[in-house]
C-alpha cells in the first residue's frame, strides 16, 4: 500500500505566498531564454523588411551580399521553401504574415522581404543592411479615422458577435432625461515585451526542434507542422523562460524563417528580431475610434446604452478589437446596442494585446459613465450600483459570481472616496491641480481544453508535465501550489515541468485562461493518480503516471457569464504650467476568484495597473501617412511607463467564491487589472481640471490646449 501524503495530509498550498520557483535562476542570470541557449555551428539570421507600404518586389540583389564575409544564404520569395498557410489552427486561420517569402507582394511597411544568414550576427546584420531590394511602389492607405469609407461590420463569431442589441435605442434616447453622447479615441499601442522574439531551429534525428519564446509551445508546434506539412509528432517546440509576451508571442515570422533557414543550410539557425522589427512583425493593439451614447432617467438609471467601436485591420487578415463588448457584461439598459466595426488598411495586422477590446473599450464606456454621473449629479459609484444587472445584459445568463460592488465598497473605504468633493477643480497643491477618479473593471474568465500528466516518483516526489507557459505570470509556481494542494503534499515535493510541446496539447498563456485551464488539467490528473495509488502496492522505478484531458469536462460546463471584476481608483496631479499629468496613487480592488499565489498575483495585478497608467498617459505609436511606416519605432520614440512614472500602486482583492465551479473558483487575473485604469485616470484629470479628455494618451500638449475649466 502506497501512502501519498504520509501521516498528515498537507493542505493550504493554494492561497499561501510563495516566491517564484525559478526566482533564483532569474536573479542570478542563470535562466536561459530563447536567445540564450548555445548550439555548436549556430548560424545567425537577420531580417530585411520592406521600406514601402504597398507594391511588389521587383528584385532582390542577393549576389553582392552573398560575396560578403561569412554570409551563408539570402532567403527571399524567389528561393525560399514553400509553406502552406491554408489551414485552421487552434486559434483560427493564420495571419498571412507568417507565410513569409511566398510571393512578391508587399502589403505593408515592415513586411519581411529577405533573411540573411551568416556565421556571426555581426556579419548577418551588415549584409542585411547592405542588401538592395527594388520595388514597384503602389499608393497606400494607412489613415485611420472614424467614418472611413472602407468601414464594415465583420461577421463575428459565436463567442463574440460583432453586433448585439435589444430594444428601441432611438426611442429610449429621446425619452431619456439625461443623455451623454461622446466620441473617444485610443492610439496604436505595442506590446514591447522586454525580450524580443527569438527562435533557434534545427533538425535533430529527423525531428524539427525549435527553442522559442512563446505563449504556447504545442500551439506553435502545430502551426509549424501545418505550415511545413510535417507530422505533428516530428516537431518539438520548447520555451522554458519567456521574457514577457502580452499577446504578441504566437507564431511569427522569426520561427518560420529559422525553420526555413535550418532546412536549407542543414545547421542550427537562430533568428532574433530587433526591437525595431517588433513594431511591424508581432502585432499590436489597433487604434480605436469609439462613440458611446448613454440615456438615463434623472437618477442615473440607464434607459439606453449604445457603444460603437471601430478598429483597423490589415488588408491580408481580419482582426477585430472587441471594444464594444464590455457593455454586454457591465450594464443593462432598456435599449442596448453594441457593435465592433473594422476598416482594412495597408498596415500590419493588429492582434491581441493585454485585455484586447476591454482595455480600449473600458476607456470609452467608463469615461462615459463618469460623464453621466456628473450630468445626473450622482456619485460615480452610486451610479454603477444603480445599474448593476441581475444577469447578463445581453445573454440573460446568470453570473457565476459578480462582486464588482464589493470591490467598489472596499476600494472606496481604503481610498478615502467618501471625503471627495464631487465638484471639479477644487483641490490645488502648488501649481498642481489634484483630482480623483474611479472606474469599473471586468474581463472574461474562460477555460479551454488542456492535457496534463502527473507522475508519482519512487523517491516520494511528484512530477507534473503540462505545456503551460510562464510568461512572467508565475504560472510555474502557481501550478506547483495547485498540484501540491491536490496531492496534499508540501510544494517542495512537486516538480512542475512546462513549455515543451512533447507534453501534449494545452491552452496557451492568453485570454486570462491559462491558469484556470491548466489547473483543471493538473487537478484532474492528480485525481486519477490518487486512484491509481490507492490500488497499487509500490511505485516502480519509472514511477506511476496518470494523464488527464479536460476536453469533455470543459464542453459540459454549464453556460454562465463568467468574469473577473474590479474597481480602479486613481489620484492625479495636473501641472497647469507644463500640462504634465502625474498619477499620485492608485488602488485596484479585484474580485478575481480564488487567488492561488498572493505574492505573484499582487505583482501581476499591479503590473496590469501600470499598463493602464502607461496607456492613459504615455503610449502612442504614430504612423507617417506619406511613407506608411511608423515614426520612432523604438523604445525612445515609443515611451511606456518607466520607474519614475509609477507611484505607489496597491492591488488587493475581495472574496469571490464560486462553489459550483469545477476548478475551485480560479479565475484569470492577467488582464482585468488593466481594464478601467485609463478611464479612472481620465476621470481624475476631469476632476482636477474640469475638462474631459477623450483622446489617449493625455499628453501635456493636449492638456495645455484644452486648458482648465476652473476659476
Amino acid at each position, binding site marked *: 500500500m502506497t501512502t501519498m501524503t504520509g501521516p498528515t495530509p498537507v493542505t493550504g498550498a493554494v492561497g499561501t505566498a510563495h*516566491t*517564484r520557483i*525559478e*526566482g*533564483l535562476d*532569474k*536573479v*542570478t*542570470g*542563470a535562466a*536561459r*531564454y530563447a*536567445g*540564450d541557449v*548555445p548550439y555548436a555551428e549556430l548560424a545567425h539570421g537577420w531580417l530585411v523588411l520592406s521600406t514601402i507600404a504597398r507594391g511588389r518586389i521587383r528584385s532582390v540583389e542577393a549576389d553582392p551580399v552573398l560575396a560578403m*564575409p*561569412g554570409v551563408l544564404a539570402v532567403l527571399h520569395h524567389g528561393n525560399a521553401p514553400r509553406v502552406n498557410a491554408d489551414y485552421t489552427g487552434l486559434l483560427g486561420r493564420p495571419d498571412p504574415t507568417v507565410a513569409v517569402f511566398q510571393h512578391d507582394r508587399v502589403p505593408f511597411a515592415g513586411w519581411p522581404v529577405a533573411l540573411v544568414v551568416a556565421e*556571426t*550576427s*555581426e556579419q548577418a546584420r*551588415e549584409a542585411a543592411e547592405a542588401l538592395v531590394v527594388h520595388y514597384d511602389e503602389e499608393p497606400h492607405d494607412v489613415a485611420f479615422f472614424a467614418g472611413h469609407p472602407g468601414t464594415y461590420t465583420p461577421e463575428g463569431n459565436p463567442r463574440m458577435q460583432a453586433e448585439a442589441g435589444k430594444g428601441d435605442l432611438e426611442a429610449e434616447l429621446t425619452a431619456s432625461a439625461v443623455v451623454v453622447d461622446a466620441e473617444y479615441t485610443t492610439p496604436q499601442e505595442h*506590446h514591447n*515585451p*522586454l*525580450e*524580443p522574439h527569438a527562435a533557434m531551429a534545427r533538425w535533430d534525428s529527423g525531428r524539427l526542434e525549435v527553442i522559442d519564446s512563446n505563449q504556447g509551445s504545442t500551439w506553435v508546434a502545430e502551426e509549424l507542422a501545418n505550415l511545413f506539412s510535417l507530422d505533428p509528432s516530428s516537431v518539438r517546440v520548447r520555451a522554458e*523562460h*519567456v*521574457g*514577457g509576451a*502580452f499577446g504578441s508571442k504566437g507564431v511569427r515570422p522569426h520561427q518560420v524563417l529559422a525553420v526555413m533557414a535550418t532546412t536549407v543550410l542543414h545547421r542550427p539557425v537562430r533568428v*532574433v528580431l*530587433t*526591437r525595431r522589427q517588433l513594431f511591424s512583425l508581432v502585432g499590436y493593439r489597433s487604434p480605436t475610434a469609439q462613440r458611446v451614447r448613454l440615456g438615463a432617467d434623472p437618477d442615473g438609471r440607464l434607459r439606453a446604452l449604445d457603444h460603437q467601436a471601430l478598429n483597423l485591420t490589415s488588408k491580408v487578415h481580419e482582426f477585430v478589437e472587441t471594444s464594444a463588448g464590455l457593455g454586454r457584461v457591465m450594464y443593462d439598459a432598456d435599449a442596448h446596442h453594441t457593435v465592433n466595426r473594422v476598416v482594412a488598411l495597408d498596415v500590419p495586422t493588429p492582434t491581441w494585446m493585454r485585455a484586447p477590446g476591454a482595455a480600449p473599450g473600458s476607456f470609452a464606456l467608463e469615461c462615459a459613465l463618469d460623464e453621466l454621473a456628473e450630468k445626473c449629479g450622482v456619485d460615480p459609484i452610486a451610479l454603477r450600483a444603480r445599474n448593476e444587472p441581475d444577469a447578463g445584459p445581453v445573454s440573460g445568463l446568470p453570473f457565476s459570481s459578480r462582486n464588482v460592488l464589493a470591490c467598489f465598497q472596499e476600494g472606496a473605504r481604503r481610498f478615502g472616496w467618501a471625503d471627495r468633493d464631487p465638484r471639479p477643480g477644487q483641490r490645488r497643491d502648488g501649481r498642481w491641480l489634484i483630482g480623483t477618479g474611479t472606474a469599473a473593471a471586468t474581463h472574461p474568465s474562460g477555460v479551454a481544453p488542456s492535457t496534463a500528466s502527473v507522475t508519482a516518483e519512487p523517491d516520494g516526489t511528484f512530477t507534473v508535465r503540462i505545456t503551460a507557459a510562464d*510568461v*512572467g*505570470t*508565475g504560472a510555474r509556481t502557481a501550478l506547483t501550489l495547485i498540484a501540491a494542494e491536490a496531492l496534499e503534499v508540501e510544494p517542495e515535493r512537486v516538480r512542475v515541468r512546462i513549455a515543451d510541446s512533447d507534453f501534449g496539447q494545452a491552452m496557451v498563456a492568453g485570454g486570462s485562461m491559462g491558469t484556470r485551464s491548466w489547473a483543471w488539467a493538473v487537478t484532474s490528473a492528480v485525481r486519477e493518480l490518487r486512484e491509481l495509488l490507492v490500488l497499487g502496492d509500490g511505485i516502480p522505478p519509472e514511477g506511476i503516471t496518470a494523464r488527464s484531458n479536460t476536453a469533455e469536462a470543459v464542453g459540459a460546463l454549464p453556460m454562465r457569464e463568467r468574469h473577473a471584476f474590479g474597481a480602479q481608483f486613481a489620484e492625479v496631479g495636473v501641472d497647469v504650467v507644463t500640462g504634465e499629468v502625474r498619477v499620485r496613487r492608485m488602488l485596484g480592488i479585484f474580485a478575481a476568484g480564488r487567488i492561488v499565489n498572493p*505574492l*505573484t498575483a*499582487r*505583482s*501581476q495585478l*499591479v*503590473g*496590469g*495597473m*501600470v*499598463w493602464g497608467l502607461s496607456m492613459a498617459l504615455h503610449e502612442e505609436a504614430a504612423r507617417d501617412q506619406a511613407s506608411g511606416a511608423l515614426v520612432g519605432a*523604438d*523604445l*525612445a520614440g515609443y515611451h*511606456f*511607463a*518607466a*520607474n*519614475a512614472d*509609477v507611484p*505607489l*500602486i496597491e492591488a488587493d482583492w475581495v472574496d469571490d467564491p464560486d462553489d459550483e465551479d469545477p476548478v475551485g473558483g480560479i479565475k484569470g487575473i492577467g488582464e482585468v487589472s488593466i481594464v478601467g485604469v485609463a478611464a479612472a485616470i481620465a476621470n481624475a484629470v476631469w476632476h482636477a481640471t474640469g475638462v474631459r479628455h477623450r483622446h489617449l494618451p493625455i499628453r501635456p500638449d493636449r492638456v495645455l490646449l484644452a486648458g482648465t475649466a476652473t476659476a
Partner: protein
Amino acid sequence: MSHSTASVITLNINGEKHTLPVDHRTTLLDALRERLDLTGTKKGCDQGQCGACTVLLDGRRAVSCLQLAVAAEGREVTTIEGIADGDQLHPVQQAFLDLDGYQCGYCTPGQVCSAIAMIEEHAAGWPSAVTADVRPQAEAAPLTAEEIRERMSGNLCRCGAYVSIVRAIAEAARPGVPRPPSPSGELGHLAGSEETEGVA
C-alpha cells in the same frame, strides 16, 4: 575575416581573464553572450534605450550594448553572473527574490546590476534630478522611493514590476544590511568623476 576587422583582446570579467579574437563590430554585450556564454546579460533593444544589458564597468553601471568589446579591454567587467558570492546572493538579488521585484525576469539582471551601482552612487553623494539640495556641501539626501524611482528609470520593466523593484532596492539599501564592497572599490564624488560614458 581579414586581419583589419578583428583583434585578439583580453577581457577581465567577474575577476577572470578571457583572451579571445573579436570582430571589431562586436559589442561587449554580444561578446559576453555569443562568445563567452555569459547570457545572463540580456539584449532588450540593442540601442541603449532599455537597460536590460546593464553591467558594471569598473564598478559603474553601463549599458553593454553601446560598448564595443575592444573598448572594454583593461576595464573590470562585472556581469550578473559575478554578483553573488558563490551560493550567497547579493542583498539586492535576495531582495528581488523575496519581494518579487520582477515578473518575466528578462530585465532583472540589468535591474540588479543597475541597483547595486545606484546604491553606491547615492552613498557617494551623487545627486539625481529629484534631489532637492544639490550643493556640494549639502547633507546626503536619504535614498527615498522617489530617489530610487528617478535613479532606476534607465532600466525599463514592461511587466510593470516597478513598485516591487523600488521596495526591493529600498530593503537592500537599508542601513545595517551588509553589502559586499563595490567591484571597483570607491566611487569618486561627483566633482571628481565627470566621465559617465554609457551610463545607464
